[in-house]
């Protein structure tokens, strides 16, 4: 019979899911910054403001950046890389809980809201990166990377990590109430431990021994290796951030699959 074919629990057309993810992306673009003036434009302005503030503060200290000559590019490679990790991690983590009250249309599933945010954050962060690069060109700050592919690979590594952390946390936060609390601590630590402020080779050995296990640090190192000529990290394990990101995503999706009936309670 056609019964099992149309069983929405088991089989759902791939095109239907893509359509729903598309609809969710369009809705999120409208609502994310809806309460502010200029709306979505803030996603582009925020990294610029942060680079400005961080660079200004470090210029005041009088010290030279650890790589290159300008703090603007040091934080372009550091902070903007970090947003590729932070944004999907935070937004995807909240995808299920934020949309729970809004899932009154049965074709829309929890997992669709997760994929919609993964896609939307990536699109937004890439657009924001392009916007920053264009503005730097306009301001005549040199932004041509030494190795463009490696430069892009670093951002991709951070995005994969962010999506992995986000998907895993989205699922865990529906089961463990205190997860969001731990997640907040984790992200605050990441802001300093990701290496957006430092280059790992300059760390004291005991600090490096600990921080070399932090996958975001490796992601930012890839971006900076791609950007700066002559910088070759001695601690980088290139596949590590990808491995951690994909593993967390798969683990999260597997748990969601097993616990779907519980997680699905809307």
């Amino acid at each position: 019979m056609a019964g099992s074919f149309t069983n929405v629990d088991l089989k759902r057309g791939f095109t239907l899911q893509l359509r729903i993810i598309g609809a969710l992306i369009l809705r999120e673009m409208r609502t994310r910054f809806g309460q502010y003036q200029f709306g979505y434009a803030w996603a582009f302005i925020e990294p610029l403001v942060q680079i400005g503030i961080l660079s200004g503060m470090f210029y005041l200290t009088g010290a030279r950046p650890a790589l290159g000559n300008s703090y603007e590019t040091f934080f372009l490679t550091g902070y903007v890389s970090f947003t590729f990790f932070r944004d999907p991690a935070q937004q995807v983590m909240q995808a299920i809980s934020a949309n729970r009250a809004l899932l009154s249309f049965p074709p829309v599933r929890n997992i669709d809201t997760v994929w919609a945010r993964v896609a939307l954050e990536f699109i937004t962060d890439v657009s924001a990166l392009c916007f920053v690069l264009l503005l730097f060109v306009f301001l005549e700050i040199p932004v041509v990377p030494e190795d463009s592919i490696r430069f892009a690979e670093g951002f991709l590594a951070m995005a994969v990590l962010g999506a992995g952390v986000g998907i895993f946390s989205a699922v865990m936060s529906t089961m463990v109430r205190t997860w969001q609390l731990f997640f907040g601590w984790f992200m605050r630590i990441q802001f300093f431990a990701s290496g957006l402020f430092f280059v790992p080779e300059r760390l004291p050995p005991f600090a490096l021994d600990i921080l070399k296990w932090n996958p975001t640090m490796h992601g930012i190192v890839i971006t900076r290796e791609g950007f700066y000529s002559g910088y070759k990290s001695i601690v980088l394990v290139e596949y590590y951030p990808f491995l951690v990101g994909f593993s967390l995503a798969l683990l999260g999706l597997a748990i969601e699959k097993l616990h779907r009936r519980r997680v699905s309670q809307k």
Partner: protein
Amino acid sequence: MIRFHDVTKRYRMKSGVKRILENASFEIPRGRNLGVLGINGAGKSTLLRLISGNELPDSGRIDRDGAAISWPLGFAETFHGSLSGRDNLKFACRVYSRSIDAVTDYVQAFAELGKHLDEPVKNYSNGMRARLAFGLSMAFDFDVYLVDEITAVGDARFKAKCAAAFTEKLEKADIIMVSHSMATLTQYCSVGCVLNDGRLDFYESIDEAIAVYNRLMKDRL
């Protein structure tokens, strides 16, 4: 035909486990309108949400034979508060793959919201929200309409308009209705079922179902 195969649904509550359905297998026939009865907390709304697919059973399977089933109309918050009525309609059209222009025109004419269609839904009165929700559900052609304690909205003229639109839909579509109003149930439904302590029993006439339900109520007192 909507078929439940060995479906179990429970809720864990602080006071213990609440049984909604316990290894229940049944068929809901097409072509008849079904009234769902049950004492408060028996899980009538959950039953509708299982039928629509909003909620998954703990175990078992629900087949829908490709029928287009509505979301439960009534209580549930269908709209995103910070989006305008128009944008909420767009979202629903994209999800259900319907023409945005056609649906917007229909709802615009039906719900009589005028310029308010471009206001955020959170600024709507309850009545406006209900009119938008009802208009949207009438703009989509479903095979089965799930109705969860729908309350009439608006003035007498608007009520008549809703009733007329609904009656027209029901020439082709079926209804599965939860209501505490026996008058509403007998008005729309010909067959009935009673949900009680994990069991769902079907009755050939809605009057019979109401009689069983009344006995249940009396036993509880």
